[in-house]
């Protein structure tokens, strides 16, 4: 075969594989909704294309199978047959046969030695009569086929148009009363769908992934070069150079976003196979399951999509196999016979959340607890103390899930530990929630991309190390005077009391066996980076904390793959190489996390009494007039201090530039004051007279995240972080306050953040959303 020929064959294969995946999806979708004409037309077109192309390329066997399939589909499309499970099975069988032959063409160039006579016979039997007309494209043709319009009537209408009637065919026919308006609308929709399909293929091109990877690498280099240029620029006073470097900065950022986008794929691409998987598994174990998907268009980097495909498939299979009950049991329990499996994907805080929910039997806490004790994974006392959620997460412990009997009674399958490991490998987390008798939800959180990540850069032993931001919880600085008191020893193991709990400390110098003396001009202060690895917290002691930076991740070469403490390397702004710490690997090395995760569970068990008391952590601060106020720490992203000079006005909104975004600032004193005023004169115009900002000195800002957007709340003074039950409450005395509570023995007002946002009327405060819409517009 000549080169051109093999190229054509390759294109044919690529296109056909894609189409076949869609076929699986469409067919299973059709089974549920057999009258969906768009989907039927789509299925028909796909098979028709395959048949046509392989006829041209001389794959006769393939053509034959596709041909009988097409005939059957014709009858379905024309409404002469309705899709039922038998037909679906036969059609899926045909899809499998086609796929197998394509696979063999891919490998050996031939169609293989399949015997398809039986399949062909089945398909022929199901269809009985044959011969298909071409897909109609003119509205008249469609109406003739579907609405029983005669050719004569169409010709009459065409005649009228020729005579100068400006109306369209449909209108004329409706007026003459030969067809109902609804039929015309239907026909137009069919016509539209065949046209849009053609248009979509014109506006997209296929690109080799290797080329995209190369472009991505180059952009990574550009980002590094940009960082270097910016570093130079910060040292110069040449305004022209500064302006040019700013421009370079902007363009690089946009280019990077653009290229990242080309690698993004909707998660629907892998979900597409799930209806088929669910159907097969459900049929296999005699269950009835309907699958629903939300957020199919949620986009993820291609490498991540590939990495989560298997874990997700496993979770979906598990839900059907073990989660959802048999129809009879469901009816007995008062549920619909058909089980529901819901896949949901959405973006949240720079991560993608994927949820797999079923309305099945749910996990039985007591059974898991009992089995875990039997398997000696936890002790009886621990078992009694573990919270429900911690019990559920036991199903991810290796020793647990491989136990064959446990899975049958507890209702979960083998290999959950593998799912967890694979998800964690790409920096994600898995969590499970369940209600007995009501169902189970598994939530997977994964980063958007692996190529460029935000990281905290620290210095230790004279070298810099990057810590991925996902595992970062908080930073603690101990002044020299506090060190002796703050760091205590538990039989030689250093710990730090972080809000009343002991945080094990790991010294990076010791773990990495670095020379301990390489610390310049030390002021005796100790920096603790609080990290989370596998649900365990620990404090990493480093020499210095530099800054957060976006870094381009470069994998380590084979020579260094054995070093588990590093996840990769990156080039810093000054051109030097820095290693990226693998937090989990480091934790394992330091013994914070053990292979079997038992220790983590034990520790958690001892910790849980404090969480059982429903203690919450609050940030205390002084509001206007020195009143004590608080917000839950969970709503807080960061505490910042800005010089007044950095505050700018954008319209009537105070803003400041913060981490490459515009952060709207809300002044608490203004909000509270305006509300007081509004009480007095609700119907008058609101005056814009606002007390000016202090002339100098820094302002204290709480950076809060609410509903996917960030804003800064300007307060007088930050007081403390405390943990309290906060169960003595009384009603609020003013707006923007949820209620008054006693925190740390003093009455404190708990802020109502949504109310503050509403009253501050943040129109311009959608930096993230505004950006998205411009991208979409491009």
């Amino acid at each position, binding site marked *: 075969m000549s080169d051109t020929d093999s190229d054509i064959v390759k294109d044919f294969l690529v296109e056909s594989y894609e189409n076949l995946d869609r076929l699986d999806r469409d067919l299973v979708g059709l089974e549920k909704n057999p009258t969906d004409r768009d989907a039927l037309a789509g299925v028909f077109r796909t098979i028709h294309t395959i048949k046509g192309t392989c006829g041209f390329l001389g794959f006769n066997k393939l053509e034959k199978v596709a041909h009988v399939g097409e005939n059957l589909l014709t009858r379905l499309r024309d409404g002469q047959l309705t899709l039922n499970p038998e037909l679906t099975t036969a059609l899926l069988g045909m899809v499998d046969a086609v796929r197998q032959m394509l696979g063999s063409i891919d490998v050996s160039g031939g169609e293989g030695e399949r015997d398809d006579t039986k399949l062909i016979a089945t398909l022929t039997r199901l269809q009985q009569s044959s011969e298909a007309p071409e897909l109609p494209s003119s509205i008249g043709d469609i109406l003739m086929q579907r609405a029983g319009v005669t050719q004569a009537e169409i010709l009459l209408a065409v005649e009228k148009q020729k005579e100068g009637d400006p109306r369209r065919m449909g209108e004329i026919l409706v007026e003459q009363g030969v067809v109902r308006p609804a039929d015309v609308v239907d026909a137009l929709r069919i016509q539209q769908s065949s046209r849009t399909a053609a248009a979509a293929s014109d506006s997209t091109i296929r690109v080799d992934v290797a080329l995209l990877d190369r472009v991505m690498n180059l952009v*990574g*280099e550009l980002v*590094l*070069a940009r960082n270097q240029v910016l570093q130079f620029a910060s040292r110069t006073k040449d305004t022209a150079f500064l302006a040019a470097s700013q421009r370079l900065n902007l363009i690089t950022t946009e280019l990077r976003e653009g290229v990242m986008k080309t690698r993004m794929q909707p998660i629907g691409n892998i979900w597409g196979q799930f209806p088929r998987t669910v159907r097969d598994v459900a049929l296999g174990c005699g269950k009835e399951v309907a699958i629903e998907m939300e957020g199919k268009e949620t986009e993820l980097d291609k490498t991540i999509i590939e990495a989560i495909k298997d874990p997700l498939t496993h979770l979906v299979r598990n839900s059907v196999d073990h989660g959802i009950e048999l129809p009879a049991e469901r009816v007995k329990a008062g549920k619909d016979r058909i089980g529901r499996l819901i896949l949901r994907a959405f973006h949240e805080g720079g991560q993608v959340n994927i949820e797999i929910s079923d309305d099945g039997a749910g996990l039985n806490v007591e059974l898991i607890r009992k089995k875990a004790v039997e398997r000696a994974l936890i002790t009886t006392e621990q078992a009694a103390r573990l919270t429900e959620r911690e019990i559920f997460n036991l199903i991810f412990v290796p020793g647990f899930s491989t136990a064959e009997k446990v899975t049958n009674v507890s209702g979960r399958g083998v290999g959950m530990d593998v799912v967890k490991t694979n998800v964690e490998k790409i920096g994600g987390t898995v969590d499970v929630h369940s209600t007995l008798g009501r169902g189970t939800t598994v939530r997977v959180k994964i980063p958007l991309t692996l190529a460029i990540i935000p990281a905290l850069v620290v210095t230790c*032993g004279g*070298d810099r190390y990057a810590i991925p931001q996902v595992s970062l919880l908080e930073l603690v600085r101990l002044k020299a005077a506090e060190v002796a008191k703050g760091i205590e020893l538990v039989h030689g193991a250093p710990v730090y009391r972080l809000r009343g709990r002991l945080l094990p400390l790991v010294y990076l110098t010791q773990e*990495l*066996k*670095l020379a301990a003396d390489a610390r310049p001009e030390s002021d005796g202060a100790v920096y603790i980076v609080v990290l989370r690895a596998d649900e365990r917290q620990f404090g990493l002691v480093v020499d210095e904390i530099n800054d957060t930076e976006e870094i381009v991740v*470069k994998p380590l*070469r*084979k*020579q*260094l793959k*054995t*070093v*588990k*403490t*590093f996840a990769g*390397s990156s*080039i810093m702004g000054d*051109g*030097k*190489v*820095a*290693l990226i710490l693998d937090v989990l*690997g480091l934790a*394992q*090395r330091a*013994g914070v*996390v*053990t*292979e*079997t995760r038992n*220790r983590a569970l034990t520790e958690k068990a001892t910790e849980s009494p404090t969480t059982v008391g429903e203690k919450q952590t609050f940030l205390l601060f002084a509001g206007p007039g020195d009143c004590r106020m608080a917000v839950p720490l969970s709503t807080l992203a960061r505490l910042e201090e800005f010089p007044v000079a950095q505050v700018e006005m954008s319209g009537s909104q105070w803003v400041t530039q913060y981490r490459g975004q515009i952060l709207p600032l809300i002044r608490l004193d203004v909000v509270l004051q305006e509300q007081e005023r509004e009480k007095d004169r609700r119907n008058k115009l609101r005056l814009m007279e606002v007390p000016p900002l202090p002339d100098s000195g820094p302002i204290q800002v709480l950076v809060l995240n609410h509903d996917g957007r960030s804003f800064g709340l300007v307060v007088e003074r930050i007081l403390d972080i405390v943990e309290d039950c906060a169960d003595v409450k009384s009603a609020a005395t003013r707006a923007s306050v949820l209620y008054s509570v006693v925190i740390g023995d003093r009455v404190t007002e708990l802020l109502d953040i949504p109310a503050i946002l509403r009253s501050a009327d943040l129109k311009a405060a959608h930096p993230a959303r505004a950006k998205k819409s411009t991208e979409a517009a491009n």
Partner: protein
Amino acid sequence: MARTSQFCTFYLDKLLFGVELKGVREVIRSLDMTKVPLAPAVVCGLINLRGQIVTAVDLRRRLELEPRPAGMLARNVVVRSEDGAVSLLVDEIGDVVEVEESSFEPPPETLRGSVRTMILGVHKLNDRLLHVLDIEKACQMTEVAETVAPGR
């Protein structure tokens, strides 16, 4: 005319070594190096070669020679290996020499140990011997990095 091949030569502890010229990407002076804690001892660190991160291998250690005297700056011979570019740290760079294949001899039986796998043989030059290095073998880390302490 006899068949010849070209070698990029360099010195290690006064011995003359050579790698085939077509396997050499470039030769550079010493660069800033980032140490890799816990890595095998022969890995000196990572260098930034125009945006590409390259592992630097101390050839003296790899070939079980005396450690480089303090204060002696190493040169980088960047070679292409199966696993991307690797920088070999050497004492000094020599000339590019062209040798006839007839001058080649395999290493003597008395050369033993892991070094033998890395040295393909020698070319008998007029005044001295040119050790021919196997790039792939030299870049392979036979030594296992320090194993991660098993969990308690």
